[in-house]
């Protein structure tokens, strides 16, 4: 299966604004050609470190929002959490700085044909791509309930505009500094039942996705996940970002999460540590 995002372009963008929100940086970039083809769930790959960089690989960020014809031209917005050197470099870039970007890349969230009840579930900055999705779903007539969780309030990403888009928003923090104290999974089951959710979209760390999936599976609710695997290229040429996924033919293969993902049907992912024994060509 090869599903390369045919709309991807590589071009030069300019930072219009870089603002801190809580633990994250909200960066708005003016760039031609990316918003034009972007769909909720797609990501971009950004070069870091400038021309003399000793960081040869691009960094991957989910598109938070994008707009082809804003008053500032074509724009793409991302939410950046400082992790290592590359993301730290990015958060230091000031207005007017140039960024080299490839995108939009990867799969996007499938949109149901009928107006159904859906839940969007975001862990930390994983909430970023879900609000644009919520807007698309609302326009389709869906009811959208949001559940956003993080370790602490500074890591909750729930922008005001996003809150307005959804029918309800529930927040959980592990330290109790915002919303309900605890984890997403502590409140998830009640939320799914109360709102008669028929489809879940989730984005966040693998541990969270797995915990959500266990509940989704038990309640027989469809679950679309957006995964975050280490990526060296983001365009399908290196084979670093693979996950075990069951194909329509029933065979489990290690597929590239940059082109066959990051959005994957939770039903098709094999939720195991390491390479499952039934994987095609497993030899270890």
């Amino acid at each position: 299966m090869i599903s390369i995002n045919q709309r991807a372009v590589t071009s030069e963008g300019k930072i219009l604004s870089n603002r801190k929100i809580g633990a994250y940086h909200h960066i708005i970039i003016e760039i031609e050609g990316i918003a034009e083809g972007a769909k909720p769930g797609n990501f971009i790959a950004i070069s870091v470190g400038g021309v003399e960089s000793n960081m040869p690989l691009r960094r991957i960020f989910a598109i938070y929002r994008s707009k082809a014809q804003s008053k500032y031209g074509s724009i793409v917005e991302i939410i950046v959490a400082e992790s290592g050197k590359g993301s730290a470099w990015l958060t230091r870039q000031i207005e007017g700085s140039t960024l080299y970007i490839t995108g939009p890349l990867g799969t996007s969230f499938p949109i149901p044909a009928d107006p159904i009840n859906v839940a969007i579930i975001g862990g930390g900055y994983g909430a970023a791509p879900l609000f644009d999705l919520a807007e698309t779903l609302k326009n389709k007539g869906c009811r959208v309930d949001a559940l956003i969780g993080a370790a602490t309030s500074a890591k909750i990403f729930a922008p005001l505009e996003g809150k307005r888009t959804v029918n309800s928003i529930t927040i959980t923090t592990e330290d109790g500094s915002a919303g309900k104290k605890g984890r997403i999974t502590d409140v998830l089951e009640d939320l799914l039942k109360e709102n008669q959710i028929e489809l879940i979209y989730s984005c966040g760390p693998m541990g969270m996705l797995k915990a959500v999936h266990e509940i989704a599976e038990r309640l027989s609710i469809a679950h679309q996940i957006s995964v975050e695997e280490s990526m060296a290229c983001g365009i399908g040429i290196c084979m670093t970002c693979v996950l075990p996924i069951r194909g329509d033919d029933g065979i489990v293969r290690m597929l590239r999460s940059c082109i066959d993902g990051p959005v994957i049907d939770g039903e098709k992912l094999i939720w195991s540590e390491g390479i499952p024994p039934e994987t095609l060509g497993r030899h270890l």
Partner: protein
Amino acid sequence: MSFDYSTSIAGSVFSNPIFTASGCAASGRELAQFFSLKELGAIVTKSIMLKARSGRDTPRMAETPSGMLNSIGLQGPGIDKFIEEDLSWLISSGAKVVVSIAGESVDEYGALARRLRGIKGISAIEVNISCPNVENRGQVFACHPASARAVIESVRINLGGEYPIIAKLSPDVTDITLIAEEVINAGADGLALINTLLGMVINPKTLKPHLGGKTGGLSGPAIRPVAVRTIFQVHAKFPKIPILGMGGVSSGSDALELIAAGASAVSIGTASFGDPYATIKIGKELQELLISHNFPSLADAVGIAHDR
């Protein structure tokens, strides 16, 4: 007088000397959305094995200063599926194709060579005997003169002279010219230099090896001086054997270094991860540099550092 940018490796002619590196362009299709593959000298496909292979555990990569480690472990669909789906597509796209093969035994290399006979549109076979991503380092055929020779002999016999054979060697040996000598005597028409160097990263927080496969191959700008040295040494000893050079090339000037050391063509690997257009950009820069040095052709620059 117009500048001649073409190159040839053991009788196969390429319009320019910039190739992709095996394992850094998948089977070509993924890059084709960015530019026409015909713009490249050739696509070198990901090393293919006889049977489907899942590769090693994740994480499979770690960025290092000016480089990266990978431990992919030769993931691939197996030769039959590769020929049917990937190779046929590549050939029909009009791209020049170098097929890279990798086996677990001498016989497997022979079987792979046999499967590739009679396919129109292959320009050369690159024989990867130097992949560091195998569980048993003893399998790195390019680390032992006798096994390196046995593999190339098996490939030569089974190919029946249909395509030029390029043997891809590992820099992780004491004297690479000894291995080169063995494979040349066994019938290699050209050499690919260099594969990645075996490396390792330990996570300073968990104190565990970072890669799922524990060790991985080091590539990128960090290894370029090793590539230049290796190509220089081998070209000095075997000036008539064409070399496909690679290792950390990310600009036209980097490529020119490898050519001056003795490479007739240059493969681009890790640089394509940072920029899908790296091959195209490097190709343009190299051509401009060669012209500005007043070389009438690429061929005139090959190995020039040995005369200066």
